[in-house]
């Protein structure tokens, strides 16, 4: 399967099967259509309800929460829970809300995404257009990194970070995310660049351009789509990560996912579910936002990552 599989809009190439289009003789088609839509809507309901619950619960006050009706609309919607989640909720010993964790995430995500994407682009360029003996093997070896369970590097990596003195800092996290992200970013770019005609590179060589000039002037300008896909993919994965966040961070460098988990799991006397939901919303907003505005690219990243080519 090609790495660039697209999910195209309904008008292009959907299966036109008369039965489901409502066009069978005895009018059974109309029933089929109805059944089709009911199933689809049922699942839509299934997928949307948790978000609905999260949102509405975060806007309710504790009195209404205690009534126990998940699906009710907030009677007097307010952002009190959100404010509390942001600045004063307790996440273990500290009660400073999600804000410091959120900021940690931002500081970690930006360099990690940029560096891993840049390296992926250059690596992909080499592996697709400048192959040499053993380069395919190198690629395969690197690729395995995408599949291995990360549990297997946790212990040794903590040791290594300790040696470098960055075990409890944001930079430790950044480094780990870059290393863990290299295989997938390299894969994305390599598969995309394989689709660029080799003759383009040959023509540039004849025109006198060398390795780097070809990259800057020709290959990179043509990388728009894959650049977006990779940035979005990396951002989503790194922002949403929890495992590295909980293992490799120190007191001041925990990302927002760890903050959220702590917040939701603190065994304080009174559980404030609305605050928990507000915190979950805050943690989810960045990636959700990106998904809504650039969903297509997100899907391309998913399918490109999963379907090897």
């Amino acid at each position, binding site marked *: 399967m090609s790495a660039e599989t697209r999910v195209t809009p309904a008008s292009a190439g959907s299966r036109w099967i008369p039965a489901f289009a409502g066009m069978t003789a005895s009018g059974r088609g109309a029933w089929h259509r109805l059944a089709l839509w009911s199933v689809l809507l049922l699942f839509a309901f299934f997928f949307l309800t948790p978000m609905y619950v999260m949102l509405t619960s975060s806007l309710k006050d504790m009195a209404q929460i205690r009534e126990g009706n998940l699906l009710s609309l907030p009677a007097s919607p307010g952002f009190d829970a959100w404010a509390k989640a942001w600045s004063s909720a307790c996440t273990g010993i500290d009660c400073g809300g999600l804000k410091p964790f959120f900021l940690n995430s931002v500081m970690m995500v930006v360099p990690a995404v940029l560096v891993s994407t840049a390296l992926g682009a250059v690596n992909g360029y080499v592996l697709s257009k400048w192959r040499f003996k053993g380069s395919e093997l190198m690629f395969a070896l690197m690729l395995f990194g995408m599949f291995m369970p990360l549990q297997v590097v946790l212990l040794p990596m903590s040791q290594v970070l300790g040696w470098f003195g960055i075990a409890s800092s944001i930079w430790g996290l950044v480094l780990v995310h870059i290393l863990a992200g290299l295989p997938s970013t390299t894969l994305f770019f390599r598969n995309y660049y394989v689709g660029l*005609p080799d*003759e*383009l590179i*040959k*023509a*540039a*060589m*004849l*025109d*006198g*351009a*060398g390795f780097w*000039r070809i990259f800057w*002037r*020709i290959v990179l*300008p*043509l990388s728009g789509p894959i650049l977006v896909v990779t940035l979005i993919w990396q951002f989503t994965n790194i922002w949403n990560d929890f495992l590295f966040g909980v293992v490799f961070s120190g007191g001041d460098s925990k990302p927002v996912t760890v903050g959220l988990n702590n917040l939701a799991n603190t065994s304080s006397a009174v559980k404030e579910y609305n605050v928990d939901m507000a915190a979950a919303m805050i943690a989810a907003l960045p990636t959700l936002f990106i998904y809504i505005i650039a969903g297509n690219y997100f899907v391309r990243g998913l399918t490109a990552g999963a379907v090897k080519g």
Partner: protein
Amino acid sequence: MGALSIRNVRKSFGATDILKGIDVEVEAGEFLILVGPSGCGKSTLLSMIAGLDTPSTGSIHIADRDVTYALPKDRDIAMVFQSYALYPNMNVAKNISFGLEMRNVPKVEREAAVQRVAKMLQIEHLLDRKPGQLSGGQRQRVAMGRALARNPKLFLFDEPLSNLDAKLRVEMRAEIKLLHQRTKTTTVYVTHDQVEAMTLGDRIAVMREGVVQQLGTPDDIYSRPATRFVAEFIGSPAMNMVGSRRAANGLVAKGVDLALTDEQRLALQTAAAPEITYGLRPESLAFADDGLPGSVSMLEPTGPETYAMVDTPLGNLVARVPGKVSHAVGERVFLRWAATDAHLFDGQNEKRVA
């Protein structure tokens, strides 16, 4: 102006020999064609001239400089690719001047070159467009413009017309020929199309399985093909080949005595093979009132000519007759030809005998 010298170039990939010893000398200003079926090595040879590949042994000289291992950009050559390979993210003007930019040519000179080339190829109105907005023929011209802009010593063409439809192909062929007449740059042109080879080349190298079977002018190749392969490859419809055996002082095929000239008989005496292939080009055959008997099995009128397939004791022969044919399919006819028009090839090593 430059000359090109290919000396005993060989190329192997592992166990397979792609090129088995190529020796070609190209004069300055000459238009050399490399033609042959796919897999014959012509594109590999072109890559080596371009510097995109290196020979396993042998050397390549451009204008008396040994460039065997030199980078493409140091060879002062330009190439037009089969897919044109225009840079999609740059407009036509930038595409043309990119090579000059890489060589640090000052902006003023670059722009002058672009104008000069655009005028020559009549693409001035396209300078701001991107390749995606151009038609096939226009892209071809831009590709040539890119090559022309640098005034290189050598032009290389890698099957540039293969992606065009038939009509456009004929037009662009003429343009390439005109361009060569004007600029007189030494050119090496690779194609698998024998019509292009015959019409464009000053000299043609017919290649097969890594070897140059014949290097000569179009006339040489057509009138005196050096091997059976060259004879069948060039010329359409292909030459009629009749297998024959020696008998007394001549040749016999399926009981029919084949016409031979004295020179041919002389050449036969020194040749060793017991079997000889007797070749006749379709245009050498004519309908007559007597001669070789046969019946018409198919007629293909092309307008100016008709190809007639005739079933004879010597096998199915194709005759190429000007105008229309008065005979109908199934009719009994006679074919005639002159012995001087026959080509004789050794039945075993396929080389020309006479």
